[in-house]
């Protein structure tokens, strides 16, 4: 049987192969003549490939934390209001640009505007989670927390709708953001994503045993001497940081956070520490695979990567349901 080390090795090999493809996939088809188009490769394809890997890793990590924290294999890192919050953040920045007479597209290369958009999405994601925590009065009751996340999600999404109704120029940018896209990932994005992963992953690994203990149920985990309130709050914050950073750079890429931990759990029997690592790797591989495909299926056009992850993720879940005989 495949062990955790075997799976890690397999995922690393896949990631390397995909990275080569990522560097080769351009708007005019495949090309490995990197020396001739060095500028293109180093300025666009390389950061985009690295950014896709890192975004996927953050989403895979956040998904594994979410599913352990809520003791639910269908929990998604977007659940706690971060997705709707980030969406609102982006819409507000776009609409504000419209009010100031500046038409901002998501593709803007102006550094200040880019920082504004990314910052807006990140702040929105964090505010969304904070609102959810306030509404649920902390993390003490996981079910209430989930419900609060749903309520905040609906509320913030309707505010987004309202803003786009008043300021229609924000609509297109919002759509691209909601679909998720890796096409704006540059070196700065890659650096920010790498920073977030370097902060969140080690901390999450340090608390992985608490996620193991939660397998027993809330009360049993407490009986083992865990301070569940603190541990849960910390894990929610880590999840919000990972999700917020990923979403701010690449929009609402669907299903990577939900499916990555699933795939790992199906293939190997592991505790949460290896699961967090492997799920990050799986997320990286998934998102880069989707990104390479998005860049190469309809050359010279490209698909928003989120459309592909949604299709692939949806198909995976359907296969899973069929295998279990539930569908």
């Amino acid at each position, binding site marked *: 049987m495949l062990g955790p080390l075997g799976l890690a090795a397999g995922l690393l090999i896949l990631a390397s192969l995909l990275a080569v493809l990522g560097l080769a996939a351009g708007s005019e088809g495949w090309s490995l003549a990197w020396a001739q188009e060095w500028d293109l490769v180093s300025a666009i394809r390389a950061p985009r490939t690295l950014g896709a890997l890192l975004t996927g890793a953050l989403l895979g990590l956040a998904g594994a934390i979410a599913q352990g924290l809520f003791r639910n294999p269908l929990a998604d890192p977007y659940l706690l209001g971060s997705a709707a919050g980030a969406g609102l953040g982006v819409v507000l920045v776009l609409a504000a640009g419209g009010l100031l007479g500046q038409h901002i597209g998501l593709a803007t290369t102006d550094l200040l505007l880019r920082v504004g958009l990314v910052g807006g999405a990140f702040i929105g994601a964090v505010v969304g989670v904070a609102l959810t925590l306030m509404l649920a009065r902390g993390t003490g009751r996981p079910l209430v927390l989930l419900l609060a996340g749903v309520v905040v999600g609906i509320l913030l999404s309707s505010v987004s709708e309202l803003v786009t109704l008043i300021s229609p120029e924000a609509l297109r940018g919002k759509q691209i953001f909601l679909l998720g896209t890796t096409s704006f990932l540059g070196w700065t994005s890659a650096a920010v994503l790498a920073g977030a992963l370097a902060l969140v992953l080690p901390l999450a690994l340090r608390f992985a*045993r608490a996620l193991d203990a939660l*397998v027993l*149920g809330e*009360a049993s985990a407490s*009986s083992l*001497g*865990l301070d569940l309130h603190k541990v849960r709050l910390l894990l929610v914050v880590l999840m919000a940081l990972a999700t917020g950073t990923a979403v701010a750079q690449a929009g609402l890429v669907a299903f990577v956070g939900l499916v990555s931990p699933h795939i790992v759990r199906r293939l190997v*029997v592991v505790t949460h520490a290896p699961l967090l690592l492997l799920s990050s790797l799986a997320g990286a591989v998934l998102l880069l695979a989707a990104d390479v495909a998005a860049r190469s299926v309809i050359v010279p056009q490209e698909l928003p990567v989120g459309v592909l992850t949604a299709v692939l993720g949806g198909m995976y879940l359907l296969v899973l349901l069929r295998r279990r005989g539930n569908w």
Partner: protein
Amino acid sequence: MAGPALRAEGLSLRLGVHRAVDGVSLDVQAGQWTAIVGPNGAGKSTLLSLLAGLRKPDAGQVWLQGRAMAALPPRERAAALAWLSQQGEAEGDIAARDVVRLGRLPRHGLFGAPTTADEAAVDRALAETEATPFATRRLNELSGGERQRVLLARALAVEAPVLLLDEPTTHLDAPHQRALLRSLAGRARDGVAVLAVLHDLTLALAADRVLVMARGRLQADGPPADPALRQALMQVFEHAFSIEAVSTVGGPRWVAVPLR
């Protein structure tokens, strides 16, 4: 050791308007194997979670090895008292052995690594509940009885001086129920204070001491040989059965016989 392993004084807890536990006081000595019995809704599980320090009582106090429960750091409490929950809440894809390893968490802490002593305790606990053969399988792939034996092993692996078990025989087949009782009696002989909520009265009557609970209160407390205890037991169950003595190789045993 001086004083009881576990002491409760005037414990009360309301759940809504319902007095789930109503002024319960009791001492549990080290080396004593005690069963709690009573009809559904008598407050047995609530009492056990109060004794385990997992709920705060509205009134009253619990002392664990002479120290006030409310003032104990959680990890010290967890190392001194193991608790097995009644509900089958455990749910996950981690291996059975990793579930049992969680029992050592109070010893090595969230950030410490399990030592060889910890691994040995895990092996002992798995062997004690005969769960070694499926130790590498996922918790979610085990049958109800196998899962219960893994969860029991998790509680035993703590090797705590006080062991509180809520319905430990759930899902177990008859031989494993008997085996569990033997290991609980063995733990008690080694000086552990064992307190278990049991539904099967015949199993409960194998304990050194039986606490009879109804409507949140302790109705009787004594060894099964005490006629007053047996009388109280039949009374709280509205004389649905009688308790008979059966002589066995190991001496007389008490058996609950259904009457209707």
